[in-house]
């Protein structure tokens, strides 16, 4: 095996890819060949490093230099200075990664120091398109151990003991789910990986699929052994083409090495995996709608019971697990349940991956042990809100979750604590909001999404969410009443209690949590027709500042005759007459008219 004296790791996650990281990688390859270093330096495309805010990211080993916000035109300089002459180009480094002229180890960088990468352990480190690199990281050893040393029941017990819970949002004990499917007798059982990550802003699963696809394949095979399934499907959303490509390559490579297919490790165990693409429906991330879609039907949720573990795909016992849940499995098998329980909390052991977004300095992907507080994630890892703005709220769980406030910053992150506080873990989306976000508008944003994505089968979700959205629109347009707030809450509770599936049952959460913690904002919209955060367009008022020269242009142009003032004196807008057309602001050459 050829040993290179230097490795150039170029992030190939979707975020960096959309910022030309593929070109950067190619330029490295070309330039390195130009200067005849191609026998000494290896260029590797990896999965997501996590610090998407400073992408495209390039890390060069053995020094561990963390080049941030890379562009193609910086590549030549780095090759000549760093790779040829050994002089790290400090001006291109991520400034948090260097202190007193010395490079910090990645684990000391603020962003990473509080993280514990378990599900993401290989992301950013290995080339996901080379199975050997996965194997170098103990890849498929867990599968080997399971097939040669353990019985299916022992595997289930191990996973149960680890306390691993579903990372897709429901938080159901993974071991228990497997234990429901295992005893059912059937001529065929299935393992399905739910890779239809639909929450807006969530990219945890995407990063695992793009950066470490083999972990998912290995885990599925282990699950298959545990419950007696010989066939697996990965249902991945079509909007993740890079993930689909990497999965295809991974499956091919695994098959070539006999790690998928018939008689794995000569133990008589067969397991193979096929990919199925979603078609743009958020509801197909819900497990029963996913099953319908896999069966070629319209993605509409089924009633439970029967549960998929008993009657799933084609009526056969089926286990459906989330990508991140699966990514934890090989480690748990190799290192044991006690190791997994050694971090996290008692009821929620292990780690959780979060996609940190919104008004935060360090947007990106983080993985922290359960029990880490929101404050640590948002401030220590995330770097707090940019531009000196005040933190206002954090939304966890996507359109199914709720908003938490400054009061909750010290809440430890685990399934129960977040639910008790009125939100939920969800799949890991974490959106930070500052003083410039309107909470009513936020609730409206998430509800808009749910209304669009509802499958349309059951009355409360199909009709109720639409009516809720109509009320929220009314409120943000300044036409809401206190009765509307009442109706909103009643509708929300009804939809929560009577919807057929998880989508409907959780759709009202953003509304309910913002009503609970930010009622004053709702009341300002309703009673004062004012949007405190200055977001809701219809509630904004136009004001003339002291910069006014009294040129009377605005008064003349106002179609409602709402501006009064004498020549050379500061004019005033009569709010009662103002129709908010904005013509005055457009006309003013002194920028003396503002909107707030």
């Amino acid at each position, binding site marked *: 095996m050829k040993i290179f004296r230097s490795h150039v790791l170029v992030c190939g996650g979707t975020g960096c890819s959309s910022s030309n990281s593929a070109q950067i990688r190619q330029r490295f390859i070309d330039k390195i060949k130009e200067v005849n270093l191609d026998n000494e330096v290896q260029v590797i495309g990896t999965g997501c490093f996590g610090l998407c805010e400073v992408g495209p990211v390039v890390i060069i080993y053995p020094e561990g230099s963390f080049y941030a916000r890379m562009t193609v035109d910086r590549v030549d300089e780095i090759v000549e200075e760093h790779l040829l002459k050994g002089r790290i180009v400090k001006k291109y480094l991520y400034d948090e990664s260097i202190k007193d002229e010395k490079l910090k180890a990645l684990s000391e960088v603020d962003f990473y120091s509080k993280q514990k990468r378990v599900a993401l352990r290989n992301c950013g480190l290995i080339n996901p398109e080379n199975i050997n690199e996965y194997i170098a990281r103990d890849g498929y050893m867990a599968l080997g151990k399971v097939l040669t040393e353990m019985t299916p029941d022992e595997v289930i017990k191990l996973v149960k003991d680890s306390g691993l819970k579903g990372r897709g949002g429901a938080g159901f004990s993974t071991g228990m789910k497997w234990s429901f499917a295992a005893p059912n007798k059937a001529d065929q059982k299935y393992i399905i990986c739910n890779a239809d990550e639909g929450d807006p802003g969530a990219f945890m699963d995407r990063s695992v699929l793009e950066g470490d696809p083999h972990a998912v394949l290995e885990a599925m095979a282990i699950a298959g052994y545990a419950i007696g399934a010989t066939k697996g499907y990965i249902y991945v959303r079509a909007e993740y083409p890079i993930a689909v490509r990497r999965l295809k390559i991974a499956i091919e490579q695994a098959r070539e090495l006999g790690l998928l297919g018939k008689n794995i490790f000569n133990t008589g165990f067969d397991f193979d995996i096929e990919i199925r693409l979603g078609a743009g429906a958020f509801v197909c991330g819900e497990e029963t709608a996913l099953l319908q879609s896999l069966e070629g039907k319209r993605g509409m949720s089924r*009633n439970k019971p029967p549960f998929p573990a008993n009657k799933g795909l084609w009526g056969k016992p089926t286990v459906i697990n989330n990508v991140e849940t699966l990514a934890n499995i090989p480690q748990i098998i190799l290192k044991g349940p006690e190791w997994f329980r050694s971090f996290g909390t008692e009821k929620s052991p292990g780690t959780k991956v979060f996609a940190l977004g919104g008004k935060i300095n360090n947007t990106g992907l983080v993985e922290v042990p359960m029990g880490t507080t929101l404050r640590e994630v948002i401030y220590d890892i995330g770097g707090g809100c940019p531009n000196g703005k005040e933190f206002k709220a954090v939304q966890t769980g996507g359109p199914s979750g709720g908003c938490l406030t400054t009061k909750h910053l010290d809440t430890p992150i685990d399934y129960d604590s977040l639910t008790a506080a009125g939100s939920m873990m969800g799949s890991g989306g974490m959106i930070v909001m500052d003083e410039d976000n309107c909470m009513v508008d936020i609730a409206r944003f998430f509800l808009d999404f749910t209304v669009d994505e*509802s*499958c349309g089968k059951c009355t*409360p979700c199909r*009709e109720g969410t639409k009516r809720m959205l*109509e009320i929220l629109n009314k409120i943000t347009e300044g036409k809401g009443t206190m009765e509307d707030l009442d109706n909103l809450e*009643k509708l929300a509770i009804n939809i929560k209690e009577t919807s057929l599936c998880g989508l409907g049952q959780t759709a009202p959460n953003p509304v309910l949590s913002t009503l609970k913690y930010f009622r004053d904002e709702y009341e300002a919209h309703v009673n004062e027709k004012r949007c405190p955060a200055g977001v809701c367009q219809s509630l904004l008022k136009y004001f003339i500042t002291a910069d006014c020269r009294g040129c009377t242009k605005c008064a003349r142009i106002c179609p409602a005759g709402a501006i009064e003032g004498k020549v050379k004196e500061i004019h005033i807008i009569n709010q009662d007459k103002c129709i908010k057309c904005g013509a005055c602001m457009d006309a003013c050459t002194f920028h003396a008219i503002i909107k707030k």
Partner: protein
Amino acid sequence: MDKVNLTINGIEVSVPKDYTVLLAAREAGIDIPTLCYLKDINEIAACRLCIAEVDIKGVPMRNLPATCVLQVQEGMNVRTNTKRVRNAVKMNLELILANHNRECLTCLRNGTCELQKLCDEMNISDIEYQGTKREAKIDNLSYSIVRDTSKCILCGRCVSTCKEVQGIGILDFTKRGFVTEVAPAFDYSMKDVPCVYCGQCIQACPVAALRERTYIDDVWDAIDDPEKFVVVQTAPGVRASLGEEFGLPVGTDVTGRMVAALKRLGFDKVFDTNFSADLTILEEGTELLSRVKNGGKLPLITSCSPGWIRYCELNYPEFLDNLSTCKSPQQMFGAIVKSYYAEKAGIDPKKIFSVSVMPCTSKKTEANRPEMEVDGLRDVDVSLTTRELGDMIKQARIDFVNLPDEEPDSILGQYTGAGAIFGATGGVMEAALRTVADILTGKDLDNFEYQGVRGLDGVKEASVVLPIDGKDTEIKVAVAHGTANAAKVLEAVKNGEKEYHFIEIMACPGGCVHGGGQSHVSAKKRLEVNPKSKRADALYELDKSLPLRKSHKNPEVIKLYEEFLKEPNSHVSHKYLHTHYYKRDSYATQEQEEYDKLMEKLK
């Protein structure tokens, strides 16, 4: 079956363990509200009206589960009438209404609408939500069925019926969320898709989102027109259901009152399709014998169900030559009325307006098939459904229930029991066998009830040993009802698994008695009474009560042959009583080629 004990609203019940809480509640005298529930056809818990508070051995179930799919469990405690449940049900019902075209007063289902009934019973007094509604589209381009999205409540009963019961599936949920619509593919009109107009979707629909296209005013106009001589024929199935329009029990035989009502409505002559049913037997029986003896195309398949004919033309064109060339009784009747009858009565056939009352919606399309005319005269001018007749009788303020029994007019009104049983599945087959058996044996057989072809099994098989040219031959027959069962039989014949001489196929499950035009029986009522068997029973009872029970004994039919047709399958018969069929494209649009290519790729 093991029993399970549970408590519903404080009442203890013990029910089989495969019961749902909904069915168990009925045992406790509680009728939990439902809209999307249609037993064995559509049990999808979508409307969320059947919800209740449930706990199992003291542990409450999460949220409010739907009782129509919740299997009973020992120790379950169900409460359907708490404030929480009442409010939730009311809210869901109001949400449905908020997106519904509430023009009840002018709606065809006024009085028979299941949503209307629930609103009345559930004390709905106010609808909070005044927002947007679904886009209202009315598709009334086909002759038979009207689709109205403004009234649809997305219960899915029509989708399941067309897909699972009929095996056709031209309706499905399209789009998503609030704008979800039940529609044919690509939002085409019902006239451009492989719909067979059997109207089972109408029977499934709790509201007026799917309804028949009505022609009542055309008939009133004809009756009022002094120039027109309006004759009416009534199908066997009608008399078994018409009474239900006036509150009589399901399956009451109201033949006499029906005739009386028709006469009072102003029809010039009230005849009976049962007459031409007998006529059909003569023609088709002869056709069968001819094919059997002369090596003609077998199996012979009946052709009186226009839904089946369309299904064959669209999906099994390879069986077109197996179809009997006979027209349906409705069409035969019309052809005879404007030729034989017109001549005998001395009426200008152009002045005859031929109306039929059918349990069927597909007959409206059949009556409009271009080839269904002779010498430029349409066999049937208007085909009405049982429901439309009921509406006309009500509009004329006739006290139907208390009418005296009256007899249909001659010379096209007499019928035998064999004609009467056409309305039940297996009826045509039995009628045919009665005649064919007599012809082949040369005797007037005493044993002529064929129980083997009766009943509601999807596919029924029977065989009769009869002498053909001196040799005893086993005549093998099959009866299928519902197009999904038709497919089963045809596939079996296609791949050589089965061999038959004669097959009766009816598009509607249960036969004509459950056609798309029959009186509506609500989903809840169907839990108590089976309209298919009740109405069929009425016809078999009628058959038993008649003096003549074999088609070839019908004196008026015999006279028709003597005076006009000469003999079955004669040249004259063929002119008036026989027809042709055509292969039809599934989606009658320019995209047919694209569709075919796609189907090939998917194979």
